[in-house]
């Protein structure tokens, strides 16, 4: 089936052309050359500006074209599947602006929206050299003046800090700090006294080498009262809410990187001959490809439900975003590493195979699990939710059935996002988890009538048992807000696997009828529960409760993968012709 959220993605593909064509602006060859030179991919970003990509970062309510976050994810995925560096370099503007969508007044959001639409790159200045992810240790101060605030101190490892025209800066507005001691301020560089800020030189990085990872030092930079986002002291809150969105949107980078790696490896396996046969004909190689594809479909499903949840289950994004941001990048890292072994020496070489894109893609993608809340921060975020998740489950909290159905039914239109509904805690629990028992019952009932669904039913049952084990483990762990023990992190990993598994099951249940009603190359994945069974196989292995899918399911997946790559389609649960197909 086709997926409506691919609309913009398809148009963008049409504009950008085949990335394998060295004459196109956004070609793999061009990206490799920028990377060699540690150079910002300015020409490619200009091409994206020509498409008016930045207007897709601005919600319609604030004058832009962002109506559905899922569209935004799929469009950025098209950029990332060509080059993660470019996606990071351009997409960073969304992160720079999000504080205004989440915490600003209508006027401020419109002002920032206009800046973004005008093509001004924005950045989000959160981290500092000495503190990293510990935001409340930040030392940049915003001191009240008669006309507003004066900013002093240095922000470091900030994407776009030097090239960006505007920033949202998290600064200390109360010398004593604390959760109410920080505020976000909008800083437009051209309104500052040039002597009051200096760029901190770009840091050279192992991946995304062309990106502008630098910093900015303020020395008495003056901003106005109207540059304060929301009320004073709401900085942490608006940052945490903004992160719920950006952590979810990060899945676009992983999805694109995974698309890219799968494409290269599948093409290689098709061409390569070993031991007198095609590599793609060797069972071990087929299994490696199919396993990587299973992981890929898993992260795609989680990304689809996660990004739809921004609008459908807005108040639950604290739990959803942490699970997505943990699962999707780490699964993608494992996928790329597994495919690297298939590719052998070519993964190391810069000039031999597809412009050396495989190795570059792996280096680039490593940034995804580092920024915007790294793996540990996201797992810790889940640990912080243990008590509310167990309590709501025990109290028999009612899932938001309508919201969940919307998040999982890809053919249903979504309501525009209401950023005010974002919450620091999922007050009514996680609907995805709360509705798992009924989803499993539904699958089991279907399997009674359709024996082909027996493997999915078994996997679903196993998922539910695993979740029960996770609940028991969460209850058994002492509250440990200060020094979180390794056991809590282990449980958080299993919880993330359960959240991912539940998203997989809901997506298949609510969308398979539509998928089967519109046959296409991806149809075999939906029939007989092939893809959710494979995805659950991967997740349950990770959760320590392996439930292997039938070998035939892996064969089906391998056949669809080969077909999609061979015909220039996106490696996906849905049908989309890439530029290569034209």
């Amino acid at each position, binding site marked *: 089936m086709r997926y409506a959220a691919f609309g913009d993605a398809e148009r963008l593909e049409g504009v950008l052309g085949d990335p394998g064509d060295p004459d196109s602006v956004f070609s793999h060859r061009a990206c490799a050359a920028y990377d060699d030179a540690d150079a910002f991919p300015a020409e490619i970003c200009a091409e994206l500006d020509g498409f008016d990509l930045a207007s897709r970062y601005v919600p319609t309510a604030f004058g832009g074209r962002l109506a559905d976050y899922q569209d935004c994810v799929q469009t950025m995925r098209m950029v990332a599947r060509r080059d993660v560096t470019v996606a990071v370099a351009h997409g960073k503007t969304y992160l720079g602006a999000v504080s205004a969508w989440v915490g600003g007044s209508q006027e401020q959001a419109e002002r920032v929206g206009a800046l973004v639409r005008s093509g001004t790159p924005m950045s989000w200045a959160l981290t500092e050299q000495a503190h990293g992810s510990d935001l*409340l240790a930040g030392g940049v101060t915003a001191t009240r003046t008669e006309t507003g605030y004066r900013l002093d101190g240095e922000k470091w490892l900030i994407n776009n800090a030097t090239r960006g025209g505007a920033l949202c800066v998290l600064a200390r507005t109360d010398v004593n700090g604390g*959760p109410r001691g920080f505020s976000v301020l909008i800083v437009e560089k051209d309104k500052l006294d040039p002597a009051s800020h200096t760029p901190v030189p770009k840091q050279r990085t192992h991946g995304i080498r062309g990106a502008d990872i630098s910093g900015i030092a303020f020395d008495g930079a003056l901003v106005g009262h109207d540059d304060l986002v929301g009320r004073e002291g709401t900085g*942490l809150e608006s940052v945490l809410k903004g992160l719920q969105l950006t952590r979810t949107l990060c899945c676009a980078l992983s999805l694109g990187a995974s698309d890219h790696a799968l494409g290269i490896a599948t093409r290689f396996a098709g061409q390569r001959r070993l031991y007198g046969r095609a590599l793609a004909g060797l069972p071990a190689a087929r299994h490696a490809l199919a396993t990587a594809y299973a992981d890929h479909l898993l992260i795609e499903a989680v990304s689809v439900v996660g990004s739809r949840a921004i609008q459908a289950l807005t108040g639950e994004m604290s739990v959803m975003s942490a699970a997505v941001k943990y699962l999707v990048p780490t699964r993608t890292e494992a996928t790329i590493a597994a495919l690297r072994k298939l590719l052998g020496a070519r993964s190391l070489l810069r000039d031999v195979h597809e412009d050396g894109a495989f190795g570059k893609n792996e280096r680039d993608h490593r940034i995804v699990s580092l920024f915007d809340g790294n793996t540990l921060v996201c797992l810790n975020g889940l640990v*912080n939710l243990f*008590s509310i998740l167990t*309590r709501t489950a*025990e109290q028999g909290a009612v899932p938001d059935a309508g919201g969940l159905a919307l998040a999982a039914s890809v053919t249903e239109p979504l309501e525009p996002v209401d950023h005010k509904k974002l919450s620091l805690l999922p007050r009514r629990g996680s609907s995805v988890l709360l509705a798992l028992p009924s989803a499993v019952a539904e699958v089991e009932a279907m399997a009674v009538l359709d024996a082909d669904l027996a493997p999915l039913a078994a996997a679903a049952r196993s998922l539910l048992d695993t979740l029960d084990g996770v609940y028991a483990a969460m209850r058994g762990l002492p509250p440990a807000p*200060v020094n979180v023990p390794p056991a809590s992190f282990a449980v958080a990993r299993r919880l993330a696997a359960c959240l991912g598994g539940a998203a997989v099951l809901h997506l298949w249940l609510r969308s398979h009828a539509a998928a089967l009603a519109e046959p296409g190359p991806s149809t075999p994945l939906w029939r007989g529960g092939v893809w959710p069974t494979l995805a659950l196989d991967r997740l349950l292995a990770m959760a320590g409760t392996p439930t292997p899918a039938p070998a035939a399911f892996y064969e089906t997946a391998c056949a669809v993968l080969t077909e999609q790559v061979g015909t220039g389609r996106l490696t996906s649960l849905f049908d989309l012709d890439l530029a290569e197909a034209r």
Partner: protein
Amino acid sequence: MTATQSQSDTRIPTDIADWLTERVASYLDTDADSIDRDLPLAEYGLDSVYALSLCGDIEDTLGLVVEPTLAWDYPTVTAMAEFLRAEVGA
């Protein structure tokens, strides 16, 4: 979590400050005696995001729906207890 369940069934703790001190101490895995009720919770290393969880305890025990950021706006046990006492009384 039967303990929580039974708590939520019982009446409001007579001294909210005592009860809060106990909750905070259990989160910090320490004795209630060692908690200074006038010191910001952050001083004990209580992660500000983790502190949001207190709203769940309050909801269960006092039957009050409060903003998750309560512990941010009333950063000490004393301040939080005063706020809650007023809310319960209202």
